[in-house]
């Protein structure tokens, strides 16, 4: 502690260490929040269901998504990334997940929403297995913190199916 530079360096190191410590505690405090998100998805209409020239099935549908993700936001949350995926099984793959829609929710006020939209991303199968197919629509979310570990979870909604014949 004998010189200005020595003291300035010691202070800088110690202050950064303490900062890392309080950020770690802030991240840890996220574990104590009660989270009860809810969501519901309805298929309003199947707009198109055809076989592409390459032989793969393609579906275009309109979804009505209602969700309340407000309880996921804590003081340490920067944003929540949410997406809807269609999940189903085929003879070739035990699990197919196709992302249909996503959104970035920047704060708590925007976390309770209802959206009616056609699928943002194309729903194309690896093959032609979709006729009469039963699938789940799953709402996934990733909670991105200001500091610390990102965690992800989902709500699985089963019981949706596609028509038996091409439209």
């Amino acid at each position, binding site marked *: *502690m*004998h010189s*200005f530079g020595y*003291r*300035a360096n*010691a*202070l800088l190191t*110690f*202050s950064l260490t*303490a*900062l890392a*410590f*309080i950020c770690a*505690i*802030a991240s840890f*405090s996220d574990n104590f929040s009660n989270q009860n998100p809810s969501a519901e998805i309805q298929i309003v209409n199947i707009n198109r269901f055809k076989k592409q020239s390459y032989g793969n099935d393609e579906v275009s549908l309109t979804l009505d998504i209602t969700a309340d993700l407000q309880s996921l936001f*804590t*003081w*340490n949350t920067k944003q929540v990334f949410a997406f809807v995926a269609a999940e189903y099984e085929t003879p070739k793959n035990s699990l197919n997940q196709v992302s249909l829609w996503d959104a970035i929710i920047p704060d708590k006020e925007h976390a309770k929403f209802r959206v009616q939209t056609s699928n943002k991303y194309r729903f194309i199968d690896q093959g032609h297995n979709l006729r009469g197919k039963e699938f789940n629509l799953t709402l996934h979310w990733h909670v991105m913190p*200001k500091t610390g570990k990102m965690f992800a979870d989902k709500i699985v909604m089963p019981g949706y199916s596609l028509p038996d014949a091409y439209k």
Partner: protein
Amino acid sequence: MDWQGQKLAEQLMQILLLIAAVVAFVVGYTTASFRTMMLIYAGGVGVTTLITVPSWPFFNRHPLKWLDPSEAEKHPKPEVVVSSKKKSYKK
């Protein structure tokens, strides 16, 4: 700074920074505002820097007593003894 002052500076720095960190976290957590926590902590670091880094007079309250030059001249400087071990081995 003298020795006592250096020790005081180090202790003050550590305690002030720890207090700033604890206060920042508690206020930030209770107001659910990350921004508040960061601002309070930054303020605390700034205040600690102002108090402990510059060489204030109160850090020099026990100054070292260096020997007065006129006193030093009265006593002969110790002679440097050259080692003569090499010569003895030649025998």
